[in-house]
């Protein structure tokens, strides 16, 4: 076993002391996670799934577990999304009741921190934990399971329609020493329920913490869930997340995976399309600058006939940033009448930026329509000309088109506050040579009227 693996296991041993009273099944699951992590160690670039992502920045780190959830309400307010919503807030992984907002939760909706849900009724809540994302999935899922303690549980009774979004806010503090957290999210959406879930990762400048999140999402028949993952963590944060979705017949899961922050970011998004007419929509946008490394893996498993997946991911990479896109569509034997569409487009703004893209199709049934397109390239010269013919100089035209490139994903975003925030962020991140000052604000202002 490597020193790195040992260091994390040592931290686990320290944490265990507090957990004497937990139910035996949780202890057993945790142990299985630890054993699996010990056996696998951290992935290396020799592992196909990690070919382009080097996790040594995490493996070599020494992360404590946070001791409290103190966070100045004033600075939290500047980070919180201006959305009228129900909100659970976690500070370095620890639940903060004072920064949460659960008033007026409609009937049929249960939204609790994992620790509370388990304490109240661990058997009913705990059952599905680990069913979708097992410890085998990756060393990180094993590690999350070993440390599993806090997180969020959202349960929607059949037929419940939640009008306001539900926000899970993860705040990262710039503390004395880096810390790690292993949030575990469980969503059970009953039949015909509808909800919007926002997972928001944000924090104080200068923070350099490690977040290792696992989310398991279960959609019953005809449930509709829109899941925004807005990751604008501090630029030195390390972020690994796996989101595993199980979809019954007629359900629809729409994911927006918006990555702006973090030094090293890896997201695995997997949907199991288990019932006819289930649909997964994956939208993604990543923007890399400095030496950011952003890796997005998606997988749509078409396990049943007449299931549909659509994917549209866009990446913009500047400076020495490195982007990775790996999108996979798998059609299992006998899953006929499948439609799977995948599109990935990337723009490199700098000669030292790099993108590694791998759009995969694995198909074992014949009555399918699957396509993927993957483009890395240049802005449309025709469009640049059209803008110049209106008096806009070439650089501004390029800036506009770069923003537009991101806009194609943002157009589908239903929550204006998120679309605007990301658009402003992208406009702000674009190199100065793209002279876009003031443009986006104007549009936002117009939209607000």
């Amino acid at each position, binding site marked *: 076993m490597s020193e790195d693996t040992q260091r994390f296991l040592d931290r686990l041993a320290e944490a265990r002391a507090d957990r004497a009273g937990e139910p035996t099944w949780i202890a057993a699951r945790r142990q299985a996670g630890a054993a699996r992590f010990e056996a696998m160690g951290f992935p290396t670039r020799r592992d196909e799934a990690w070919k382009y992502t080097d996790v040594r920045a995490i493996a070599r780190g020494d992360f404590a577990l946070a001791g409290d959830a103190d966070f100045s309400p004033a600075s939290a307010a500047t980070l919180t999304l201006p959305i009228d919503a129900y909100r659970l807030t976690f500070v370095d992984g620890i639940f903060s009741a004072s920064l949460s907002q659960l008033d007026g939760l409609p009937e049929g909706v249960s939204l609790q921190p994992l620790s509370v849900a388990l304490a109240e009724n661990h058997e009913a809540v705990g059952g599905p934990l680990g069913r979708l994302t097992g410890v085998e999935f990756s060393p990180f899922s094993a590690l999350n399971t070993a440390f599993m303690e806090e997180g969020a549980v959202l349960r929607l009774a059949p037929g419940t329609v939640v009008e306001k979004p539900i926000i899970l806010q993860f705040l990262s503090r710039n503390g004395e020493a880096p810390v790690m957290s292993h949030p575990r999210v469980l969503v059970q959406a009953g039949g015909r329920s509808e909800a919007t879930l926002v997972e928001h990762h944000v924090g104080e400048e200068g923070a350099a913490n490690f977040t290792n999140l696992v989310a398991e999402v279960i959609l019953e028949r005809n449930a509709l869930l829109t899941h925004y993952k807005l990751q604008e963590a501090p630029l030195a944060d390390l972020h690994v997340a796996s989101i595993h979705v199980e979809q019954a017949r007629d359900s629809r899961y729409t994911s927006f995976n918006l990555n702006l922050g973090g030094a090293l970011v890896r997201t695995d998004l997997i949907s199991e399309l288990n019932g006819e007419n289930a649909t997964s929509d994956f939208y993604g946008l990543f923007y890399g600058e400095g030496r950011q490394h952003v890796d997005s893996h998606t997988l749509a498993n078409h396990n049943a006939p007449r299931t549909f997946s659509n994917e549209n991911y866009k990446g913009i990479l500047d400076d020495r940033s490195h982007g990775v896109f790996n999108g996979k569509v798998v059609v299992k034997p*006998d899953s006929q009448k499948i439609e799977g569409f995948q599109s990935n487009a990337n723009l490199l703004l700098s*000669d030292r*930026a*790099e993108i590694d893209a791998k759009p995969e199709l694995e198909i074992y049934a*014949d009555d399918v329509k699957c396509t993927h397109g*993957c483009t890395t390239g240049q802005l449309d010269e025709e469009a640049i000309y059209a803008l110049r013919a209106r008096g806009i100089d070439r650089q501004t035209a390029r800036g506009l088109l770069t923003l537009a490139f991101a806009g194609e994903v943002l157009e589908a975003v239903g929550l204006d506050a998120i679309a605007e925030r990301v658009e402003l962020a992208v406009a702000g991140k674009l190199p100065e040579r793209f002279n876009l000052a003031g443009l986006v604000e104007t549009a936002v202002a117009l939209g607000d009227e």
Partner: protein
Amino acid sequence: MATEEMEQLVRREYKEGFVTDIESETLPPGLDEDVIAFISNKKGEPEWMLEWRLKAYRAWLKMTPPSWAHLDFPPIDYQAISYFSAPKRPEDRPQSLDEVDPKLLETYEKLGIPLHERAALAGVAVDAVFDSVSVTTTFKEKLAEAGVIFCSISEAVQEYPELVKQYLGTVVPQTDNYFAALNSAVFTDGSFVFVPKGVTCPMELSTYFRINAENTGQFERTLIICEEGAQVSYLEGCTAPMRDENQLHAAVVELVALDDAYIKYSTVQNWYPGDEDGKGGIYNFVTKRGDCRGDRSRISWTQVETGSAITWKYPSCVLRGKHSIGEFYSVAVTGGRQQADTGTKMIHIGEGSRSSIISKGISSGRSNQAYRGLVKIGPRAKGARNFTECDSLLIGDQCGAHTYPYQEIGNSTATVEHEATTSKIGDDQLFYCQSRGISEEDAVSMIVNGFCKDVFQELPMEFAVEAEALLRVTLEGSVG
């Protein structure tokens, strides 16, 4: 159309030529340094060549077979293979076409193979094929006149040691991969082509080669060099089913194109795919790579792959020269329990280098096919461009088609486009054809041919025609 009928249509039963029970002069199975020394000695090789082989062998011992391809087969026992077998004596072969399985001949007929070639293909003793001998001599004279060297690799080691020494292993190093290392240690057959500066090879080397196709070996090594401004078109293999008793084939092909040179390499591969359960078919593990070493050089790979139980090959281009061009056009048809993992690598190093990839896969029966490709754009490859189109057609509900394209792009001025589709033959397309009075069989063949058009048009004319016929025969299912 009912799936069953469709399967009926496409189920392919390979009618192998005949079974021979004649033992040829072979070395006992097993591989060690003595065996390599024996091979080298038999071939009358100089000392450096033996050293070169041994270096490869020692590297191979430390390597493990690749496991990442989308293939499934039992481990190969490399000590159970015999690494040297002397050419068969003429008296051990069929003495005339009368001794050849009539069904094989029928296939040749369907494919439109010229009479004098059929004998050679069926393995009839060469001296029985009077025509081809004289034809061969004419070709040799014509090539010599142009200054083109074309001979077996063994002959080249003896006759042109300096050229071999200069280029061998410079494109595919001995230690490149498991099978290339094995090949480097034990290769016995293969071709050597050298086209000097400014010369356009006066004929397609295909024709010559086809007549001599019989020398297909287990560990072939081919080396083609085009000097500045030279051009050659080379066709390997043959549309007719090849008779072969070696299960493992691990060939290495190296192409070198200097400034302004153009090498066009076409392959038609139709080796025995095994019976319906995939038993006894050929394992085809090939390393093919072209080095566009010179500015404005161009290397084009075209392949039609219908045979073998397992195919593992990625003809690739290293685009080192400025404005060099790499091309890969592929049609792969699999049926039964065939497995094919094929694709290409385009490594862009030179400024303004361009590559295009068109891959068409047709899977039927219980076969599995994967396209695996890499497009890599290096930081100095300013303005590099790649276009990839990768389409799969599925016939029957028990086959698989997979696409694994890798793109590694490190240059902001590059343009890389990849498109892939997977679909089945549309019922509406079939209905449309049938409603115009075309039989179902013809309609399938027509649609599949249309699907492959972009690749077929890259083949030398005569082979394009044969390839279409091959496809039709393959899809008919019953060759006889």
